[in-house]
């Protein structure tokens, strides 16, 4: 069966549609009282009742509904037939639509929509109800999963609160997909509203009847969820229904703390406690929400890490990686629920009834090889008691990048007071290098929080980052773009300038170094792999006496020794030592040319690097 989501796009059928058969509403035009509408109870007896039309749902088989003159209840003239498609039917995935009147009707004198139904096989209709008018659907109510069988039988769709239905257009709503993949047909007949008097004990619920308690802050908005209606049918059986929130009236016991609007949106405004309840007509709905508001929410510290150094799991400050879930609801031992909230535009994870909870980001896993730390901001709203611990368990899925398979490793980092405090944000920065239990960081996939004596906490800004201590073997970004005006530059190697023509970037001086030009983030970059020494032959001798500095951008993850030389004929050469490795990424340096004395700056013919490791070089130029 298909899901019960209704697509509210309206498409008229080519053939049927809007049978205007005159208005049955007879108002005296001189009467200035509020219009009263027809109380005609008939929807489809042996044909469309006055002003009734049909519209099929988008995505449904538009021809699924037919008026049938062959198969009818009680051998009457006509019935409604719905031909449900099988899966993969190119015409649509289900049969569904709305029968609505062009002129509203007053249904307030009735208590049920009834009809007779049968099907070519036993089936469960996904949605049968009323109140869908292809508009606001203000008073939609339906039974989701109405079991029908192969013989004609009468069915009842109760009206939750008929007093609200004084101007209703949505007479009948039907939506049904294949049963176990297979299509079939069902019929409805004698569809009408009735006053049965034999429905009883109607009970609306919010939050599925639970009495919930949540912590809140100014600016938090949440929705009333779990709206249900249960009514006892004439056979003594309770029938559950889906009803729109408009049937209910919502109340906040302390509007200074939080308000609730007609659609069930709760907005927290101040500090204190309020209880949100609902009623259907004069009857109280089951379930409530007690909001304990702390008042002004103090957001977690705003992250300051450069986004290029961050892999974010949950933060509004960064673009998050794909996350499978923020609460895995692991069975059977997990008690933790999620009551996440948004305050001041910042999303906050809120774990209630906490014992442990898992976050998974396995599709794809995160390669943490170039990351140094895990950052988590935590807030404990409750007092910290003796014996409180908070554990961060980071899981790597191993080479198969999937849970299990014998290659998963993990490390648990435990925190306790005084690190763990109450009602202040706790910023944890856990070095991945301290996680000795992780055999690999290449397939990070889960963070599991575990706690003792922590009933509730908020989490924000969960991300991995590199503080610069981990240097990727190959730079992930291009060298900084030079800003010196071209007029002030004699360029040897740079995409930013016109270089001295004819230079040989890899003269054969017998070196072991493997020199290539590689593309790093769109920028041509010199790469010296396995450096022992490496020369660079200028195309023509250069007089740089008008310049003050040699500029270099260099990058190395693994070098422990690196020197740069300028060379004039003789040869006369002089080395300047460069700091390696380049913690934090590309390093830009401007070396005063005076450092190369006694090299003849009016006649430079070569330069040279020596040392070890793999070196990336860019933007080699002389500048004023």
């Amino acid at each position, binding site marked *: 069966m298909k899901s019960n989501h209704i697509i509210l796009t309206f498409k008229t059928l080519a053939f049927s549609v809007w049978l205007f058969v005159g208005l049955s509403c007879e108002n005296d035009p001189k009467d200035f009282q509020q219009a009263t509408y027809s109380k005609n109870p008939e929807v489809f007896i042996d044909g469309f009742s006055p002003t009734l039309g049909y519209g099929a749902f988008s995505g449904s088989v538009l021809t699924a509904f037919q008026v049938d003159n062959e198969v009818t209840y009680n051998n009457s003239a006509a019935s409604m037939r719905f031909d449900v498609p099988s899966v993969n039917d190119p015409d649509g995935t289900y049969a569904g639509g709305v029968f609505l009147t062009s002129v509203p009707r007053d249904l307030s004198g009735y208590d049920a929509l009834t009809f007779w139904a049968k099907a070519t096989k036993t089936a469960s209709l996904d949605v049968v109800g009323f109140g869908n008018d292809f508009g606001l659907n203000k008073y939609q109510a339906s039974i989701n999963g109405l079991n029908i069988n192969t013989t004609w039988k009468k069915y009842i769709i109760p009206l939750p609160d008929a007093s609200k239905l004084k101007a209703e257009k949505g007479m009948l709503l039907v939506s049904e997909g294949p049963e176990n993949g297979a299509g079939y047909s069902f019929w409805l007949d004698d569809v009408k509203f009735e*006053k049965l*008097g*034999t429905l*009883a*004990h109607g009970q609306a619920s919010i939050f599925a009847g639970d009495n919930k308690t949540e912590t809140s802050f100014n600016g938090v908005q949440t929705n009333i969820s779990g709206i249900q209606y249960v009514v*006892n049918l004439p*056979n*003594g*059986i*309770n029938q559950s229904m889906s009803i729109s929130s408009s049937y209910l009236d919502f109340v906040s016991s302390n509007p200074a703390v939080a308000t609730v609007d007609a659609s069930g949106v709760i907005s927290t405004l101040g500090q204190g406690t309020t209880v949100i309840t609902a009623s259907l007509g004069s009857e109280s709905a089951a379930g409530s929400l007690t909001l304990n508001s702390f008042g002004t929410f103090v957001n977690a510290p705003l992250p300051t890490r450069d986004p290029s150094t961050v892999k974010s799991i949950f933060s509004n400050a960064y673009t998050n990686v794909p996350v499978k879930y923020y609460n895995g609801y692991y069975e059977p031992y997990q008690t933790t629920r999620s009551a996440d909230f948004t305050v001041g535009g910042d999303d906050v994870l809120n774990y209630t009834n906490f014992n442990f909870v898992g976050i998974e980001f396995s599709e794809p896993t995160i390669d943490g090889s170039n990351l140094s730390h895990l950052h988590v901001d935590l807030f404990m709203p409750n007092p910290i008691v003796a014996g409180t611990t908070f554990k961060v368990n980071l899981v790597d899925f191993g080479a198969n990048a999937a849970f299990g398979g014998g290659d998963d490793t993990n490390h648990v980092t435990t925190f306790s007071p005084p690190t763990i405090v109450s009602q202040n944000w706790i910023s944890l920065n856990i070095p991945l290098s301290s996680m000795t239990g992780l055999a690999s960081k290449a397939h990070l996939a889960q963070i599991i929080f575990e706690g003792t004596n922590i009933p509730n906490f908020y989490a924000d800004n969960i991300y991995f980052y590199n503080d610069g201590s981990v240097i990727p073997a190959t730079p992930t970004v291009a060298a900084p773009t030079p800003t010196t005006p071209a007029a002030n530059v004699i360029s040897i190697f740079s995409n930013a300038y016109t270089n001295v023509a004819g230079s040989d970037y890899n003269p054969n001086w017998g070196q072991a170094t493997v020199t290539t030009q590689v593309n790093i983030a769109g920028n041509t970059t010199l790469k010296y792999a396995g450096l022992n020494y490496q020369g660079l032959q200028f195309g023509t001798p250069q007089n740089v006496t008008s310049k003050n500095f040699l500029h270099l951008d260099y990058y190395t993850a693994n070098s422990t020794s690196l020197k740069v030389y300028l060379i004039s004929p003789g040869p006369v050469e002089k080395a300047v030592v460069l700091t390696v490795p380049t913690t934090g990424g590309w390093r830009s340096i401007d070396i005063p040319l005076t450092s190369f004395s006694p090299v003849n700056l009016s006649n430079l013919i070569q330069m040279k690097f020596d040392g070890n490791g793999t070196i990336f070089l860019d933007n080699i130029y002389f500048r004023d």
Partner: protein
Amino acid sequence: MKKIFLFSIVALSMTGCNSDDKGQQIDSRNWQLVWSDEFDGASGDLPDASKWGFDLGTGANGWGNQELQHYTNRPQNIALDGAGNLVITALKENYQSSQYTSARIKTQNLFSQAYGRFEARLISPYGQGIWPAFWLLGANIDTVSWPACGEIDVMEIKGQQPSIVNGTIHGPGYSGANAISGRYALQYDRFDKGYHLFAIEWDADKIDFFVDGYLYQRIEKSDVPGEWVYDHPFFMILNVAVGGNYLGNPTNDTPFPQKMTIDYVRVYR
């Protein structure tokens, strides 16, 4: 109530809902109140011990009908509500190897009477397998046994038919499935939506069954195929049974708890 109903029985012609019927209101008589319980007491109290005793436990063979409940005298199964009602509550709970608990009270050895008017005003419970009753048994049951003692069921409702009340007598030669029974169906209403008054008026020759003052069944001496045993004192019983072969067992869809709310029981002569 007492014995197995092998199949459902609906006898006699005088079923309800027949508004064309004349003579369904009979001349009011000058009844003298001789016994009553208005159930005015503090919330949580058990019913007046000078008027009511308890049947406890599971009886023999589920009180003769394979009923499922264990009757207790705990306040959660039976108590005054402080608003002038006695409430008998059927609960779904595991209790001493039963799945349900409820309560059953009787005036046996405390009050019995032959003839007169017996009435109870109450709100019925409801749901598949819920079986409330207000009924009478011959006070000589311990000497002549059932059905020779006679049984008059003033009110029995099958919870899956909350708009229908059944009035029945059981006697020697016409008990259980062969009992003499009639029923009355409310139109546009149910017995669990509000108070209704269930009564019999009984004299030496006949028993009349009423709902809300409407006579829906008269059983005369000549109507019974056996001995007319309604000539000696009877005592009263109020109970809510759960399941059994009269109406079938509850399902997972049967709402619990289920309450029978009794405003009063009155007996006239």
